[in-house]
């Protein structure tokens, strides 16, 4: 795949927090309609990578590009192309579902017609419609994640970055969330998901195994399994790779 086909590019990202090297030359590219899984143990640097790609934080070295543009520039055009769902809680717990959507709708600069159309659509696909008046901090873990996803989808982004979206979510909601992701990808969105669940990683078009700020391997799950023929499961494959690197 050539670079121009990739709507999201990270090139040689380095990031250091005091003594801790969070990223050590991470490069990856994601094409429209592709679901990319960023897998790695705790502290591997997944969140750091996603935050840099979202333009929330700058890298020490390297760069990220969204459709060829720098997400750090603050250019509204880039920001509107980007949806980002942080790992931590990031919505206003004391505001209701509707109020959160309305507020972020305004922050994303949506006009009234676009906003109400988006709101209808997102409430429908996340099945949050009945909970419009409920405070965000009174939602269950799964519903909260769906609301956060809805907020990040408000500007109809071309690139969606999700940091452990299914962490703390029950299996039913997890399945629903993934079904939703596939729909989005089907429509041509480029999606990056970080996860610690191997069954989720296996469903991605491509996965990258991140370990200590570097990619240990990258590729389609089936291809990776074939290349490292001696692993029984996908999980074994990754555990072996991590052990080898240590």
């Amino acid at each position: 795949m050539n670079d121009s086909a990739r709507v999201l590019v990270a090139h040689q990202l380095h990031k250091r927090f005091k003594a801790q090297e969070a990223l050590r030359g991470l490069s990856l590219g994601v094409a429209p309609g592709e679901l990319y899984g960023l897998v790695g143990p705790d502290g591997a640097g997944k969140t750091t990578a996603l935050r840099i790609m979202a333009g929330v934080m700058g890298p020490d070295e390297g760069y990220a590009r969204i459709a060829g543009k720098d997400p750090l520039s603050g250019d509204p055009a880039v920001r509107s192309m980007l949806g980002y769902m942080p790992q931590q809680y990031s919505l206003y717990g004391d505001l209701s579902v509707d109020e959160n959507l309305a507020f972020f709708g305004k922050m994303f600069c949506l006009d009234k017609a676009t906003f109400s159309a988006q709101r209808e659509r997102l409430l429908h696909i996340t099945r949050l419609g009945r909970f419009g008046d409920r405070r965000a901090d009174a939602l269950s873990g799964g519903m909260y994640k769906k609301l956060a996803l809805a907020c990040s989808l408000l500007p109809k982004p071309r690139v969606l970055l999700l940091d452990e979206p299914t962490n703390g979510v029950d299996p039913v909601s997890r399945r629903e969330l993934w079904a939703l992701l596939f729909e989005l990808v089907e429509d041509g969105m480029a999606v990056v998901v970080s996860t610690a669940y191997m069954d989720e990683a296996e469903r991605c078009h491509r996965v990258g195994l991140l370990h200590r700020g570097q990619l240990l391997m990258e590729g389609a799950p089936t291809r990776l399994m074939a290349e490292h023929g001696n692993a029984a499961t996908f999980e074994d494959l990754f555990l072996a790779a991590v052990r080898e690197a240590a």
Partner: protein
Amino acid sequence: MRYFIRTVQAVVRKELRQTFRDKRMAAILFIAPVLQLTLLGFAVDMDVDNVPTLVVDQDRSPASRDLLARMLADATFARTQEGDDPDGPMARGEVSVAVVVPRGYSEDVKKGRPAEIQVLIDGTDPVRAQSAMAGVLEFLTQESLHMATARAVAMAQASGRAVEVPMISVVPRVFYNPSLKSPIYMVPGVAAVVLLVVTTVVTAMSIAREKELGTIEQLLVTPMRPVALLLGKIIPFALLGLIAGGLVIAVGTHVFDVPVRGSVLALFLGMLLYLMSTLGTGVFISTVANNQQQAILGSFFFIMPAILLSGFMSPVENMPEWIQLISRLDPARYFVQILRAVLLKGAGVEDLAGPLLALLTFGVGILALGTLRFRKRVA
């Protein structure tokens, strides 16, 4: 630009909504100021009256009874106890003053000998002790003077001569606060303190909260400009601050009879500039703090010295030279000065150019610094 204004509006609305939804926040903003003002206003009432007084009348004569009755007629001293031993009640804190009229007092007076009256004062609270001492001294001096004059007149009449008793009569006129009531002096200071606490803490907290709860992450990926977020945070608290400030002054004028002699325009101009300083400080603190607790702590690092140096309790002129120099950096000092001048002295904008300009300088400076730091940290 239209988008900019819309985002500011959205943040203002959200901020107001959250503030009123959060009972604690609303309490900090509205109930606290009035409560603080009322409590502080009464508590710092430094007028000394109703001092609990013990009288020990060892003479038990009509003269001694008459003397004590007249001394206690004034509101300054209140007879709470009678007894023989002044030490116990004072040690227990039951009385602050004890007046002992020794046996032989009336004899001494009648014979024209110097009569002694013992006054014991609890010096734990120096302000109260001094006032009480002054009260006793004044009363007894007047009393001696009357006795001396009466005696001189009697003697003169007995010898058939006319009397002339020389006297200096002092006619004091106290300006600006003629009844010398301390609440009138204190209320402006309390107002400055209340506004400082309310606006600095609330602003710092509300920005730090976005960081603590992680909502700043979601905000940062929107096309919103950091300055719009900042404006959206400052505008509601400036408004609420103005309302709280107006409330404090209203309570001051209605409950404590604080006059408003000067220009209301100068008052609000001063308040607006002062709010710029306190809000700017709040923004600055929020760039250093990572959570609400740090924001509160940081605010008090600024607030405590700002209050102490503001001259709200004791005049700035009485402080050591170098502290006076530091106090020039204290916005509260200028606001207290402006409030007192407007409320008590009837000053207008033109009389207050100096402090108003100082506030403007500080306000613009700290707001600019806070904004720069804020933009750098979030970008």
